């Protein structure tokens, strides 16, 4: 079924792909690779903005109520930072907007927008997405939503300050925060942005199901595409729930309904249930794609088949399912019926199992490999190393009684940043450095890449590891000045140390930005397959032309046939026809599905 559909689509799209003009090529492009690049530049800008907000948060915590340093002191009006001193209400906006930009405008577009667009069609042998125009729409929604979110800094009352979780009733009425328009813009922006995710996800799901090249059976799909396929389902099902909740909250804000406000017999906890029912799948939306391309990088750079391919797929699908029934672990201390606690403890600890399976399989892949220590590999292994920490620290909060103490402390802040920075961001660095040659036709500078990796890894851990210790000491999150509490005053030196580490980590990212931009023009020309990879992606020119494959590729084997004993080369592309007889036990040059060797 998929064979014929794919062939026809190919023939249909192959015509008329040339001379589209500047606007259609670079701005209103329907080419999935151009859309991936558009998402990449947009998301990296938002990543830088989110980082700048983090630096300001850490300025306040490291040097409480000291004026901001000179170069930026004068930038802020008296409603935010009079004489450069950050106000508590501005601090709340910083905390809220840092998380909002990072989660919704940096990590989600980087994961799904960039890699979903770039990898899915190229890895399954499709000429483009199923719905290229919807794909274009999916991108263009993002800057519109981003502009609205940015504008909220400049309205009266400032940007939203009720946290990225936007707990009602604090978020449901400007009366409690002094933020009226800012909160409304926050809601409107995220409602609009939701359509970007929904349309993108529709495309990914349809493309993976319908547009695989002949022979690309489900268990020959590379793990990156598998991870993006599972992620797309999560987006498709979770984002509408968030959007629904946001609309109800917007009604509470603007037209006086009381879905979440107790005055009208509304339920504050209902918001939390809705938010976290979206929010926990969201956590996996932010990490699963990284798990996917980290798997590609580790297998390729170890020159070894991925260990336990089927387990890896099953583990991701299991995470995709279990992610729906764990949301209550965010609410152990919320006033939710305590008898529900045990249900969510069990589901939550069970989700540790597929995470453990993935970790052990990555280690199994490295075992007896021939590991090439390039920048992508270093970032990918750092992903595994730091994801281990983020996963293990999660077990503390999964235990409801221990969560009594750790809930809303810096232990959570440490945990989530180990997953989302140590995990997602290092995964993204692995992904960008690995796929950069396919996107731009040139390699990123290796020396500068390694320097960026080394400094990032050290400063990152200096910044975030001690946050566990702050949590153990009981320091609450989202507090403007910990020194208000006698029991937290002794933690100031550590907070200052963390802040300086964050500044160094942020400064290190300039190396990445420079390497990224400089390599666009001056990088070594990559050629089609610089990493000697097996996936269809690397059979195309770098960057691939509109329509991707000159001829329909035919897939003969799984994506991880590295270092096959019968071959001189240590890789075996998925589309290379088997030799007619005598070698490798492969006899028939048939695209008909056959089991992956070794399973």
């Amino acid at each position: 079924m998929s064979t014929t559909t794919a062939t026809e689509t190919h023939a249909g799209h192959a015509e008329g792909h040339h001379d589209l003009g500047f606007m259609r090529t670079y701005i209103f492009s329907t080419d999935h690779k151009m859309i991936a690049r558009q998402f990449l530049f947009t998301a990296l800008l938002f990543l830088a903005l989110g980082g700048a907000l983090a630096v300001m948060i850490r300025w306040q915590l490291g040097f409480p109520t000291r004026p901001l340093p000179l170069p930026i002191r004068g930038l802020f009006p008296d409603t935010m930072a009079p004489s450069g001193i950050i106000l508590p209400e501005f601090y709340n906006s910083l905390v809220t907007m840092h998380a909002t930009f990072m989660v919704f405008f940096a990590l989600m577009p980087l994961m799904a927008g960039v890699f979903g667009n770039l990898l899915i069609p190229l890895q399954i042998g499709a000429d483009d997405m199923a719905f290229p125009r919807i794909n274009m729409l999916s991108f263009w929604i993002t800057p519109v939503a981003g502009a609205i979110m940015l504008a909220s800094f400049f309205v009266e009352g400032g940007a939203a300050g009720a946290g990225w979780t936007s707990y009602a009733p604090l978020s449901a009425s400007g009366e409690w925060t002094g933020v009226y328009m800012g909160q409304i813009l926050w809601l409107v922006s995220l409602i609009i942005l939701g359509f970007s995710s929904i349309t993108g996800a529709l495309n990914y799901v349809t493309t993976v199901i319908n547009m695989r090249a002949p022979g690309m059976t489900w268990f020959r799909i590379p793990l990156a595409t598998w991870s993006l396929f599972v992620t797309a389902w999560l987006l498709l099902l979770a984002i509408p729930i968030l959007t629904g909740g946001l609309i109800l909250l917007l009604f509470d804000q603007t037209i006086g309904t009381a879905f979440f406000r107790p005055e009208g017999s509304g339920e504050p906890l209902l918001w939390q249930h809705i938010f976290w029912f979206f929010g926990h799948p969201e956590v996996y939306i932010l990490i699963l794609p990284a798990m996917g391309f980290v798997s590609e990088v580790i297998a390729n750079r170890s020159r070894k088949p991925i260990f336990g391919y089927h387990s890896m797929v099953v583990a991701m699908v299991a995470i995709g399912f279990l992610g729906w029934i764990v949301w209550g672990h965010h609410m152990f201390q919320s006033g939710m019926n305590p008898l529900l606690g045990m249900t969510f403890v069990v589901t939550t600890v069970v989700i540790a199992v597929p995470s453990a399976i993935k970790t052990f399989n990555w280690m199994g892949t490295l075992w007896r490999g021939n590991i090439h220590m390039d920048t992508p590999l270093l970032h990918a292994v750092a992903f595994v190393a730091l994801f281990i920490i983020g996963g293990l620290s999660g077990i503390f909060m999964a235990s409801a009684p221990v969560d009594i103490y750790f809930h809303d402390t810096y232990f959570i802040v440490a945990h989530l940043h180990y997953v989302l920075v140590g995990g997602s961001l290092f995964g993204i660095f692995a992904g960008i450095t690995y796929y950069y040659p396919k996107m731009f036709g040139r390699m990123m500078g290796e020396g500068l890449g390694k320097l960026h990796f080394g400094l990032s890894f050290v400063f990152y851990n200096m910044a975030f590891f001690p946050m566990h210790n702050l949590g153990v000491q009981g320091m609450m999150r989202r507090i403007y000045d910990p020194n208000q509490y006698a029991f937290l005053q002794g933690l100031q030196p550590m907070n200052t140390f963390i802040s300086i580490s964050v500044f160094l980590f942020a400064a290190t990212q300039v190396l990445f930005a420079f390497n990224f931009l400089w390599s666009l023009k001056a990088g070594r020309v990559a050629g089609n397959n610089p990493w000697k990879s097996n996936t269809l992606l690397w059979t195309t020119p770098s960057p691939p032309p509109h329509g991707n494959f000159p001829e329909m590729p035919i897939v003969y084997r799984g994506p991880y046939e590295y270092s096959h004993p019968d071959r001189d080369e240590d890789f075996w592309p998925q589309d290379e026809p088997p030799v007619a007889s005598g070698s490798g036990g492969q006899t028939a040059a048939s695209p008909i599905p056959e089991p992956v060797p070794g399973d």
Partner: protein
Amino acid sequence: MNFSWLMPETVSTYGPTIDAVYYVILWITGIVFFATEITLLVFMVKYRHKEGRKAEYIHGSNKAEIIWTTIPFVIVMGLAFYSKGIWDEIRDPDLIPADAYTIQVIGQQFEWNATYSGADGQFGTADDFVSRNAIHIAVNQPVVVQLEALEVIHSFFLPEFRVKQDAVPGMITPVWFEATRTGEFTLACAELCGLGHYRMGGTVTVHSAAEFQNWLSEQQAAAGDD
């Protein structure tokens, strides 16, 4: 700088129990942490690229998959059931000590108001009095706080008692604890509640039984003077 992983002092009856679960998890995760990170490092060094060497063509091992699925499953389920017993002990509404002394606490922007029932032991009567940002209790006497919030969600956090419970407007949530020694301890708000969230703190003073009675009488006399 305090890089310690030891929990700070606890002064409630169930504090040590919570800390014990924490230490069990700390040991397990600590061992897994060192085992996995060291293995990763060893692999990185031992299997680093060398000219002429080929990686081994291995697709996996069902035996290994079964082992590393089963062992984590057994460990985390063990932790889950261990946690359940303690969670119930602390939070099961039916297990709140029957002789607990009741205080009503309302969180509001940005203070904690504790209402005491006065001599008659009944709330809503003339001898009730309110203590602002200062909770007073007796040692070795279970206390149940009937927690509420006025306008937005706050979180009633007593770090030394290992107590944290959100106060939700429109809901009354009971939370109980029992002090094991006298002294003055921290009351904090742990849920972002607006611009004054960071200074929504107070104290919990634990008295001996006799002192507590004195304090109650003094407060009541003061309240009666109004």
